[in-house]
């Protein structure tokens, strides 16, 4: 390794110079170090002391070049001595890197020669008066390029422990911490994607733990597979995986679905039952695909609602399908409590009503749907979320898609309505109406709720579209982003994605983003585990990170940070700051 190479590796010395490119296409840099020293996705800085700006970008491609193709085609080692061949290779064969120029920032004064001016400038940076901005110009020819240092990354992505910056992972090359701004993350809906086994669930746990620890946002998790609340065992390593409940026992409330629900053998904090009167025809229509409902269902449901209003579900459930009685003359007729009698009375197609009654049997028999719930668990959930607690709704034994779709949508609709009401009260200046606490709803298997057919009917797509208008955003977790309606995908602020094998999934994750072509290859070549690409509105620029491991060290660091922050605050309080 030459001195230059060593310097590039350890001190972020120059790794090349800018040789071309523009705003429409990527910048091109000729590397002065071997290609193996850098990787696609590396965060680089174009740092020219003669320029007014410092540029920040990502390496999106590496290409082998030669001053004359004949040098590349010739087997130099076979023709010349190893020494001469090496000298010739160093001069004639090289690597070009393509750099996606994403941000630029005003260059400050020289800290050595203009120390005082530099400190003034740095204060403005700290005060966020000078911030990186989208690249609107290009660096000069031969501007030196280097790998980003920890301070560059902190400047762009924030410093761990400061404000709401939370370390999500580290850069690939040098392991510098990369943070995400949790306050910004929850301002718009976000998505975590990745094929099965890419560590999606672990990454989600990391982010959720960060959000809970940060304490400014309430989190509601629809835990379809009972992964997030209770302690778990990793399917691949067999290691124990701490759950959020165990680490935040007072902050996280475990809610089980159904009166006698247990979660991995443990009793939840309380259970949730759905009141029949809470179910709307729209909740049923949402299940059209799952229940294989006919096109006539909407008409039948409409008639049910006009007949029984809020009790339509209860009344319909009570009706008997194809029930008959003998009349006074001994003739078999439809029973008064039969579906047929009601249908004929309301002018509804009898077979359509009978069919709907039969298909709703799965809901009629769901043990968590009751006429009169023992407690108002829904209100308790809302109160918990409002009080800064977080709720993990475990589906326990009700892991079927039907249960998940039905319950998650119904609850989300109710909670969103509540938040909308509170937001309107707050905005209208109603006395005593506090600002609603931001709420993040984490949804697994999001494509089941947000696919093209269902997106328009669920509350989730409404939330995704509204952004943070009513203080509610989504954190969607999915392995098939291509199945999610593209209008919803395009609304996602922050996207964190692990490896995806399917080209449609890759294209879906990049929907609505600039520089898609450059990012596509990067996404396809992520390591199958632990490497993730962060991109979108919520991060200053796309970046590939080695995601933080969800292990004991993570918890030690996270809880230590919190403890030390508390300690500092206590000191400031004592000093009357």
């Amino acid at each position: 390794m030459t001195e230059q190479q060593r310097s590039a590796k350890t001190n972020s010395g120059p790794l090349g110079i800018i040789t071309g490119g523009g705003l429409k296409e990527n910048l091109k840099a000729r590397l002065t170090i071997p290609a193996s020293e850098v990787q696609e996705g590396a965060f680089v800085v174009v740092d020219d002391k003669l320029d007014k700006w410092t540029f920040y970008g990502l390496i999106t491609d590496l290409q082998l070049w030669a001053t004359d193709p004949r040098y590349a085609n010739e087997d130099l080692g076979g023709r010349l001595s190893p020494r001469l061949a090496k000298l010739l290779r160093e001069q004639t064969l090289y690597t070009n890197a393509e750099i996606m120029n994403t941000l630029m920032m005003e260059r400050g004064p020289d800290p050595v020669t203009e120390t005082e001016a530099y400190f003034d400038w740095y204060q403005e940076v700290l005060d966020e008066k000078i911030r990186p901005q989208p690249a609107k110009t290009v660096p000069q020819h031969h501007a030196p390029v280097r790998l980003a240092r920890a301070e560059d990354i902190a400047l762009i992505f924030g410093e761990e422990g400061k404000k709401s910056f939370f370390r999500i992972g580290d850069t690939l090359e040098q392991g510098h911490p990369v943070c995400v701004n949790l306050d910004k993350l929850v301002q718009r809906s976000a998505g975590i994607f990745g094929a099965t086994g890419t560590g999606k669930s672990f990454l989600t746990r990391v982010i959720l733990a960060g959000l809970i620890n940060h304490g400014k946002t309430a989190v509601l998790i629809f835990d379809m597979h009972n992964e997030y609340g209770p302690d778990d065992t990793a399917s691949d390593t067999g290691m124990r995986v701490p759950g959020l409940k165990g680490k935040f026992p007072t902050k996280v409330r475990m809610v089980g679905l159904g009166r006698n629900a247990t979660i991995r053998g443990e009793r939840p904090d309380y259970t949730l039952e759905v009141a029949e009167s809470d179910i709307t025809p729209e909740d049923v229509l949402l299940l059209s695909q799952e229940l294989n409902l006919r096109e006539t269902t909407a008409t039948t449901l409409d008639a049910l609602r006009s007949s029984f209003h809020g009790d339509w579900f209860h009344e319909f459930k009570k009706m008997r399908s194809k029930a008959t009685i003998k009349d006074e003359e001994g003739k078999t007729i439809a029973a008064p409590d039969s579906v047929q009698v009601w249908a004929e009375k309301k002018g509804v197609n009898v077979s359509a009503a009978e069919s709907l009654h039969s298909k709703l049997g799965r809901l009629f028999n769901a043990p968590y749907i009751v006429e009169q719930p023992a407690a108002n668990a829904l209100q308790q959930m809302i109160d918990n979320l409002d009080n800064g607690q977080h709720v993990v709704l475990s589906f326990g034994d009700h892991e079927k898609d039907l249960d998940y779709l039905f319950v998650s949508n119904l609850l989300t609709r109710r909670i969103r309505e509540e938040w909308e009401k509170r937001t309107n009260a707050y905005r209208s200046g109603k006395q005593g109406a506090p600002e609603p606490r931001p709420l993040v709803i984490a949804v697994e298997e999001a494509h089941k709720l947000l696919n093209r057919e269902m997106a328009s009917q669920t509350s989730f797509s409404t939330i995704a579209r509204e952004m943070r208008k009513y203080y509610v955003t989504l954190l969607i977790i999915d392995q098939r982003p291509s199945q999610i309606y593209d209008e919803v995908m395009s609304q996602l602020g922050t996207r964190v994605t692990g490896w995806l094998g399917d080209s449609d999934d890759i294209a879906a994750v990049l929907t609505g983003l600039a520089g898609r072509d450059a990012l596509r290859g990067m996404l396809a070549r992520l390591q199958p585990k632990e490497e993730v690409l962060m991109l979108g509105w919520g991060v200053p620029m796309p970046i590939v990170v080695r995601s933080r491991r969800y292990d004991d060290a993570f918890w030690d660091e996270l809880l230590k940070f919190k403890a030390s922050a508390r300690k500092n605050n206590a000191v400031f309080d004592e000093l009357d700051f």
Partner: protein
Amino acid sequence: MADHIEIGRLLRSETVGFVFGCKLDQIDSPSFGSMVRVKMDDHYQIFGLIYDIRIQDDGLVKQLITSDTLVNEAWLDTRGNRTVPVEIGVLALGYMLDDQVSQLLPPRPPLSLDEIFLCTPEEIAAFTSAGRMGYLRHIMRDQNKPVAELLAAHLKNTREVQEAEGHSEWFDAAVEELITLMKDDYPTLMTVLGVVDELESSQDGRLG
């Protein structure tokens, strides 16, 4: 410092080089690829590289060749007292003015009958170490000359001198510069490197 060996006097010159003459019995000292210098005055001397050694015929030589018998006296007389000099072509590489080496072409060429000296190892080492090997471009300028062999001979000679002076890195730096200057001319560069390689391997074989 080694003795200064005078090897001839200037016949004709131009900015990019000159030709000097010597007697046939002086031919043992200069050789293809040797570095020479011309002392113009106490402050100014020109450095060059021998690229051509030419022995012209004359009427007497033609007659002797066509005679039936060549007597020994006539052969010795022709070699020792011949009035036609050996002509040695030199490429100008640079100059030294007040002990400052410049690898640019000399401001004015040497004058007729100026004395030509073979460079000593110290002088070779001093001239070739100064600057950034810019003088190599003078060698490559004229493609009518045997550039590859000339460069190879020069690198071989100078490498020996530099290594004796303890500058083992000189050779790699010279080859790097050569590659930089010639990389746009693939055929010539590969020929030059091929010859250098051949010289290296023959030297290694000899050392081995």
